[in-house]
């Protein structure tokens, strides 16, 4: 990255990037714990995740304010501007993923109050795929790796397919055993939440591709090459 004359500005940009990464890590942890709370039927862990959501929200607001401050005071241009606009968009998706972790935990707590439904066969597999997408989309942001981001876009199909499969399985299950409807519905919601996580990871990857490809275009315009 080119050096800026104002050192403070440099520091602010670095902070934005670092905080976005931090938020990413935090959200990843929330999702990992939410899935763990669900599969281990661990109500305590689920409550912990719900409790921690305010940290996610706080960090999102903090990054948002920092970005606005830099926009207002420094009038960033070119790659700096792209970083900031990317960051603003990215954190919205990350925060939403954080909310999904909370939703999963809410349903998990409700499910834990009832006897376990049959094993959530493909749910852990789907959760794993969504987690991988999230991890790779954040990696793509850090490394500015468009190839990785494009892979995430492809992987979304895996999550979507699993969601459809689980949906159908649960539907059959509900028809066969009407007593299980309330629990099966909750599992269905969870499946939907995980599918949404995959969608948000897709969004992040798209933003990253824009961020990096924008840079490539920039190199073609002589005015901005400096």
């Amino acid at each position, binding site marked *: 990255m080119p050096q800026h004359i104002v050192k403070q500005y440099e*520091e602010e940009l*670095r902070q934005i*990037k*670092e905080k976005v*990464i*931090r938020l*990413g*890590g*935090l959200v*990843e*942890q929330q999702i*990992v714990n939410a899935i763990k709370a669900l599969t281990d039927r661990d109500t305590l862990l689920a409550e912990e995740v719900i409790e921690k959501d305010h940290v996610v929200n706080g960090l999102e607001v903090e990054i948002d304010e920092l970005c606005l401050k830099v926009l207002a005071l420094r009038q960033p241009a070119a790659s700096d501007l792209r970083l900031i606009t990317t960051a603003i968009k990215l954190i919205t998706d990350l925060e939403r993923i954080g909310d999904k972790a909370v939703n999963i935990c809410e349903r998990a707590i409700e499910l834990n109050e009832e006897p376990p439904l049959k094993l959530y066969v493909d749910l852990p597999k789907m959760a794993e795929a969504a*987690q*991988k997408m999230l*991890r790779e989309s*954040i990696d793509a942001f*850090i490394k500015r790796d468009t190839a990785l981001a494009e892979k995430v876009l492809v992987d979304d199909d895996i999550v979507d397919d699993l969601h459809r499969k689980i949906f159908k399985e649960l539907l059959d299950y509900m028809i066969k055993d009407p007593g299980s409807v309330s629990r099966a519905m909750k599992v269905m919601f969870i499946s939907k939440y995980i599918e949404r996580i995959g969608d948000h990871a897709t969004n992040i990857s798209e933003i990253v591709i824009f961020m990096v490809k924008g840079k490539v275009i920039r190199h073609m315009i002589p005015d901005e090459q400096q």
Partner: protein
Amino acid sequence: MKKKLFLPVLFSHLLVILLSILLYVIFENIYSDSVKAALTALPLGLITAAFFTFRFSKRISGRLEKMSLLADNISRGNLDQPLLVQSDDEVGTLEASLARIAPALKVIIEDLEEREGQKGAVLSSMGEAVLVTDRQGVITLTNKKTRELLKAGLAGKGIAEVFRDPTFLDLIEEGNEKWSTVSGEFTIFDPRQITFHATISPLIKNMKILGSVIVLHDISMLKKLETMRKDFVANVSHELKTPLTSIRGFAETLLDGGMDDKKHAGKFLGTILNNAQRLSRLVDDLLTLSNIELGKVTFDIREVNLSDVINSVMSTLTPKTTQKGLELKNELKQALYVRADRDRLEQILINLMDNAIKFTGEGSVTVRAQQQSERITISVTDTGVGIPENDLPRLGERFYRVDPARSRELGGTGLGLAIVKHLVTSMGGTLVFESVEGRGTTVRFSLPTA
């Protein structure tokens, strides 16, 4: 006494004065006019003086140039340029000092390089990953282990880019805030799922934090062992408790009047006996397992005729197979001799074949043996229920059951395969499972030929 450089200067000046006076005297005699004589003598004297000064300063500046060249070389780290001390004056003293600096610097630099090399060797031979960051969290130094672990160039990257685990990042901040070493554990969300114990010390100089030194110790293996130990204790308690609960329950029922009901009492006593037997099997198995693990079991390794062992095992198990209507097949064609402990080998085969019989409803159980160069592979194949692929790697773990309810129903302790695995390993073999669900299972192990 050293030569002084001002002496030649003084000398040249005196020469000018003397020359001027001499010329003045000569010219005065010629012109017999003191003013004219002075006017002629002075320029001549000055020209002479200029000539001498020029020659002299040229000599000095040449030497000074050489010295500055040398100083330049030294600053570039080129320390092998010799410098000749040309005279005994002040410039000469400077030359001598400069000439001494180079070798002295060389010694210091070599010393530093050696120490640096030692530190580098210490860092790179460490089993822990070491990272140093500056105040902004930018990585400035890593050791070999770190690079191996993360498979990427790290210098210049932010620590958050590499480990975005919130627990870890909070830990670094805590260290910086507390001005003291902190430690904690975290697991990276990598498919590898490595758990680290991190020790973070702030780098403090002149009451300022310059960065952090991070030492990461991979404790994944320890964690796994800890989980295994916890699981084992939990499993043992559970396994011991189940028969005990039955024994206690039925004994209580008998005491509460069940004794008088002759019809049921017999059944209850039978259950108590069954559970007591199960308990004693379990304790026996646990003892066997712990003895093997402690190395207390001695192996009497000698030449063993494999057919003898198989025949003996088959005759033991034939009643069971006939009872279940299974076919017991021995496909051993030629006489094979292995190096093994006969009793242990029999134990292994009984265990494996008994398992095969237990989980086979109809069909056959077949023993095969095959010689491959220096080893003989023995296999037990059944046409039973088979084992799901996911369970295959975990077979042989203590108390690991594919179908817990069924295994208990069939009287298994959950330790049989664990014992077999240990016995096979102790005799220098490995246990391999192959299975297709619904079609059957093959267990294979190899032993050295006699």
